[in-house]
């Protein structure tokens, strides 16, 4: 922990209220009575962000707070579902994938992603009907669907990205219930990711380059990738026609 000066000028205190502080300085602010006013402000910080504008200039605004994170997940699940739906519907699906097992795997994954998409649609509609994002228009490059290799490569990106997105978004949620739901989905995405990676090269289920970011998919601490919404949205943007705007999403 960084060593702090023994006294803190007031303007630094005000600035500091916006930044993470260490324990000692927080206690000092508490003593100065400033924390109380910070708490007052915090207490007023309710969900007053009910207007989710979705126009051409700002694109599809995912919104803020827990609903924003749910919209973020809903957006990603829409893209995944659209991709696998297109794959399984390919007229040459069974010639691209000659193994019945592999066709079953891809059909299962399609079903899971459709289930996730529909879940978020229903759950957000129930919790915050005015804040749900619309259905997105997928933008799948034709090259993603031309061969077994290109389909699996795209699938790998989607799955590893999905895992990293949920891993990074968990801490942004304030509701333990939503966190629980995210946990139920992320492990299924990880199962998908492992199987897709193994279909590309057996044994790479949890090893080898991450692809979606530098380094390996599992790091030296045995940890999977976690990415921020900003990182994930940058990677996902090419696959959707609308501009995804995550600027109001929580960052802590």
């Amino acid at each position, binding site marked *: 922990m960084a060593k702090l000066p023994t006294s803190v000028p007031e303007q630094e205190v005000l600035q500091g209220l916006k930044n993470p502080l260490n324990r000692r300085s*927080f206690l000092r*602010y508490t003593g100065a009575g400033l924390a109380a006013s910070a708490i007052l402000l915090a207490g007023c910080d309710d969900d007053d962000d009910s207007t989710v504008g979705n126009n051409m200039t700002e694109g599809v605004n995912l919104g803020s707070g827990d609903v924003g994170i749910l919209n973020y997940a809903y957006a990603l699940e829409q893209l995944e579902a659209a991709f696998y739906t297109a794959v399984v519907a390919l007229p040459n699906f069974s010639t691209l994938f000659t193994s019945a097992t592999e066709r079953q795997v891809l059909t299962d994954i399609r079903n899971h992603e459709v289930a996730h998409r529909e879940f978020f649609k229903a759950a957000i509609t129930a919790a915050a009907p005015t804040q749900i994002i619309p259905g997105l228009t997928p933008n799948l490059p034709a090259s993603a669907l031309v061969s077994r290799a290109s389909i699996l490569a795209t699938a790998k990106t989607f799955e590893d990205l999905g895992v990293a997105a949920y891993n990074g978004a968990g801490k942004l949620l304030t509701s333990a219930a939503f966190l629980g739901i995210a946990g139920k989905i992320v*492990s299924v995405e990880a199962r998908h990711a492992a199987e897709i990676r193994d279909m590309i090269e057996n044994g790479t289920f949890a090893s080898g380059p991450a692809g979606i970011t530098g380094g390996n998919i599992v790091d030296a601490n045995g940890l*999977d990738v976690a990415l921020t919404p900003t990182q994930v949205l940058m990677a996902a943007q090419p696959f959707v026609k609308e501009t995804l705007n995550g600027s109001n999403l929580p960052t802590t």
Partner: protein
Amino acid sequence: MNIFNILKEVEKVDPEVFDRLDPRREVFKHFGGFGKKLVAAAIPLAFGSMLNKAYGQNTTSVREVLEFALKLENLEYYFYKRAADTNIFPSAAGKTAFGVIRDHEEDHVNFLRQAITGLGGAAPTTYTDANFDWTAKGLLGNATFTNYGTMLAVAQAFEDTGVRAYKGAAPALISNDAVLQAALQIHSVEARHAAHLRRMRRDMANGMAALKPWITMKDSGGLPPEFQGIYDGEEVTTQAGVNITGTFGGITIDANAASEAFDEPLTVAQVTSIVAPFLA
């Protein structure tokens, strides 16, 4: 005024707020002063006791969760350590995969030990191979490391249990962003392991051709009935009040798909009961 927002905001300013409120660390006096300021700010006195409860549920449980995870990771590590050293793999790929998983479990053990040490207090518990009973109280006899099918089945059992255990623990870590994210990052690695073990069992000679990388209903994948607890509860098809089954855009999600699409958590008590036979 939203009391939960206040807690979250306090935590943004000071991630260690709950830790600080620990009376055993002589900061109770700060808590007292904090309370006075809250009164001054016209915040209900109840907030003080709520913080106190929040503290009680957080620092204590973070350590408990990490120790619980440490026990499971040691169980896995020592299992894979022995398993990867055997020569009963029909292919080099299988042995390599077990080595990869063993190394991850060792990484998790070391990571969790560091995390527990970082919380302060007593040192993390140290485990050895002797802490574990690979016969599962005689249930598996000596087959665990001599019968390839049994070895893969035990591995699948451990991985699917690990996934459910971390999932159950995650909400208890919601107050500690760093620990929560790390737990999620371990959780998804366990899920990758589980998927690969299931793939290995599916694809092995005379294997379980119908087994999938994901869990269908509460199917135990041929594990003995004593291990059914690993899968009980996985069959749910309703999430947060939403029925997952239905037909959407011409695609029918049946109960099997609905159950596969969501993995389910286990409580500490359930996991403890599942792994009990493997504890010496």
